[in-house]
Each structure stands twice: as C-alpha cells, then as structure tokens.
C-alpha cells in the first residue's frame, strides 16, 4: 500500500509517458463531449425556458430524469446502436474515442440542459420586463435573461464536465478500454486495480481527485460570483 503510493508519486513526478497520454486522452474525450453537451444542453434549456409547446412538461421531466441516467445503461444503449448490427453500425465507431465522446455527451447533456433551465427560470422576472422597457425584441430579451443566468449555467457546465470525466461505465462498454487508443483515466484505474497493479491506478486516482478539486474550486468561485446580490 505505502509502496504503491510512493511509486504512484514517482510516476506523477517523473511525468511518465503512458500516464500522460492516458490523462491527455481523458481530457480530450471529456472536453469534446462537454463542448457538444454544452451547446446542445444550453439550446434545449433555453427552448424549454422561453417557449411554450405541448410536450414541454414531458421534456423537462425527461431532462431531469436523465440527469441521473446510470452511465452503464447509457453505454449499453449506445453499444446497441453502434454495434455492427445496430442502426449506426456502418459508421464503425464502436471501440473508438468518438464512441466515448458520444457516450459522455449523452451523460453530460441532460445536466447542462436541466441546470440551465432552472438557472434561467429563476432569473427575477423584472429582468425580462426591464429589457422590454428598454426596447429589446423578444429574442434580445431572452438573451439578456440568459446572460443574467450565466453563473447558474456555468455551474451546470462545470458539473457536467465532472460527471463526464469521472464516469467509467459507459466508456468501458463503448470504448473497450484498448491500450493506447481508448484507455482513459477511469477505465485504467478499473483495469489495473483488477490486475493488482496499484501504482498506476493510485497515480491516476490522485490526479482524478485533484481534477475534481479544481472543478469544485471553479464551481465555488462561479457560485460565489453569482451571489453578489445586495440592496435593490
């Protein structure tokens, strides 16, 4: 145990190449997934906040439900779709980083959508009215309300990144954990622990924890900034 930790630190300190490439792939996959999820999630969050359509209540319920979608279940469905006999099997995406990006986007998307929606609807209605009094068109008014919700929206995006980067079930199923190709931090930890190779697992574990500390730091900073509410 102690020995594992010592070796883990020397791996980190020595900037071990395998370690670095695993970290880099993790960040690339989750980063890309986040960009996709943030754009799509923000769009959906805005649509359900500003427009009224028949199935709106259902969409909001689904959005909230899918926030807690078990990653391995998401992985299973995506597997069925991407596998050779599945509807998108011809694209040959299974066991590739692209499949992992899709999987993580699916997991991160409802978080961004749901948290942006609640951030937007919680903006004081006077902001909408004030924008209108100043001559804003309906579209400009909505943009201004979203700007007012920006800290809540950013919290959603950060939380979504946290979920994407720390998730293991979905990418294990659709990525296959192929060394040097689809092996990322979480799947490596799962595998190496299984094999009894603790030092790499511990090193990655430490890095993941540091990453989530950083993410949480951001989250707190953003939330504190959003709380500058005083007099009026």
């Amino acid at each position, binding site marked *: 145990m102690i020995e594992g930790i010592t070796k883990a630190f020397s791996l980190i300190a020595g900037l071990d190449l395998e370690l670095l490439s695993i970290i880099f792939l993790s960040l690339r996959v989750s980063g890309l997934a986040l960009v996709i999820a943030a754009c799509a999630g923000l769009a959906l969050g805005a649509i359900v906040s500003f427009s009224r359509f028949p199935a709106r209540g259902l969409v909001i319920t689904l959005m909230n439900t899918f926030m807690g979608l078990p990653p391995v279940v998401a992985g299973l469905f995506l597997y069925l779709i991407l596998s050779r006999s599945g509807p998108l099997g011809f694209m040959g995406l299974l066991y590739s980083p692209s499949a992992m990006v899709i999987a993580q986007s699916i997991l991160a998307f409802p978080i961004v959508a749901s948290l942006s929606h609640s951030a937007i609807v919680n903006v004081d209605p006077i902001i909408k009215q004030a924008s209108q*009094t100043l*001559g804003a068109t309906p579209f400009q008014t909505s943009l201004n309300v979203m700007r007012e919700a920006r800290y809540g929206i950013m919290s959603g995006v950060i939380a979504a990144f946290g979920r994407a980067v720390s998730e293991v079930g979905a990418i294990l199923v659709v990525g296959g954990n192929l060394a040097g190709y689809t092996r990322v931090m979480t799947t490596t930890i799962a595998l190496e622990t299984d094999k009894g190779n603790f030092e790499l697992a511990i090193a990655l574990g430490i890095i993941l924890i540091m990453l989530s500390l950083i993410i949480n730091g951001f989250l707190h900073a953003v939330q504190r900034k959003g709380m*500058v509410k005083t007099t009026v």
Partner: protein
Amino acid sequence: MSLGLNAINICKSYNGRSVLKDCSVSLDSGGIYTLMGANGSGKSTFLRICALLEQPDKGEINYLSDPPFCPPLSEVESRGESTGRVTSENTILRNDMGLKRRMTLVLPGVGIFNTTVLKNVAYGLKIRGINSPAAEEKADKALEFVGLLHKKNHAALTLSSGEAQRLGIARAIVIGPEVLFLDEPTASVDQENTEIIEDIILNLRKDKMTTVIIATHDISQAERLAGAALVMRNGKITGKAF
C-alpha cells in the same frame, strides 16, 4: 421631437377583478405629468399599458407624432399601406417595435442587470445596434447627467436604492426617449437622492423633448415637478388637479 398620447376607454382586469374601467386621458407632447392615487388603484398597470408592455382588455392607446408626421403620398401608395391614420391635426402612429423604442418605463424596482453600471446604461444602445465606443460615450453623458459617472465601472448590484433609481433613469434617458414613464422613482429614496432625482426630471423639462409621466405618492413632489397632476380613482383618471 416628442410624442403626445391619447388613452381611450382603457379597461383592464386581473383574474376577473377590474383595475382600469374606461380610463381615458390625453397627454400633450412635451408635458410633465404626475400620476397619484391609492395603493392598488392601478397606476403601475396604467403605465405598463401606456408603455405598450401590456395589452389592455379593451380600449386604445394612440400615440401622436408632434409635429404631424406625413409620409410622402407616393411612398404610401407604392407600399400599398399607410403608416398610420391621418387625423385632422396629427398622425396616429402604428403600434410596433419602432414605436415601442421611442418610449421607456423605469420600473419601481428598476431591474438592474448583474453587470457594471456602464453596461447597464449601454444596454439600450447595444440592442439598437450602436457600437461600443459610441455607446460608451453616450452612456458616460447619461451617467454624468445623473451624477453616477464616478461609479461607471462598479458592479451595478452594489448601488444603494437611490443610486439604483438614478441608474434606472440614466439607462432610460440614454436612448433619448420621446416619452418617459417613471413609476415611483423616489419611493425608497432618501431626501438627498430625492432632490437629485427631482432635479434630473426638472432638467428634462427644460428642453421639452420628452413627455414625462411620474407615478408618485408624494403630493408635494407632484406640485414641485409637474404642470398637471393626474389622479387615479376607481379605475379612472379623474382629473388634472392643478
């Protein structure tokens, strides 16, 4: 140029409870009016309807351009439509975004945006497509006018209520409104800030470019500011007190 307005038989009810009942009034362009009346009498409702933010259940708000605006006949014919009905002395303007942008209402709570003081004031210019340097220059002038220029880079939400009201006025006048509605601008404001705000309003009066309507509970303020005081009672505007 400023606008006159005719409110004709405005009716408005909320949840079956009638607030405005055949409320009519006619306001001259360039005039300054105060609007008084008990709590819940419908002053804010009336201002929102006049500012074209809310539809009345019945009745019309007609804005009149002054001096009369007459589009060249050929232009009207070629478009196959008229920009408005031509009455004997004035043109009734069509109720659209263009007209809406010629007036503004400062809400009782102002509704300050969570950004800097400067960006709050520049907002109305930005949405009209005015570029940043020009917008900042105009915003600076408006802030100077209300005595807030030294706070232009402060977070707007940290202002006191009196300063917030002044910011609301700066944000409104920067767009050069032809009609300005102020809904209780001095309700939670101390003596000093009240005087500052009244001075701002009196300054607006000088150039007669803006028709101003101020809802207030302060009768002495009404006397200080306005040529005419309107009173809201039983869903109607009952008269001009002086």
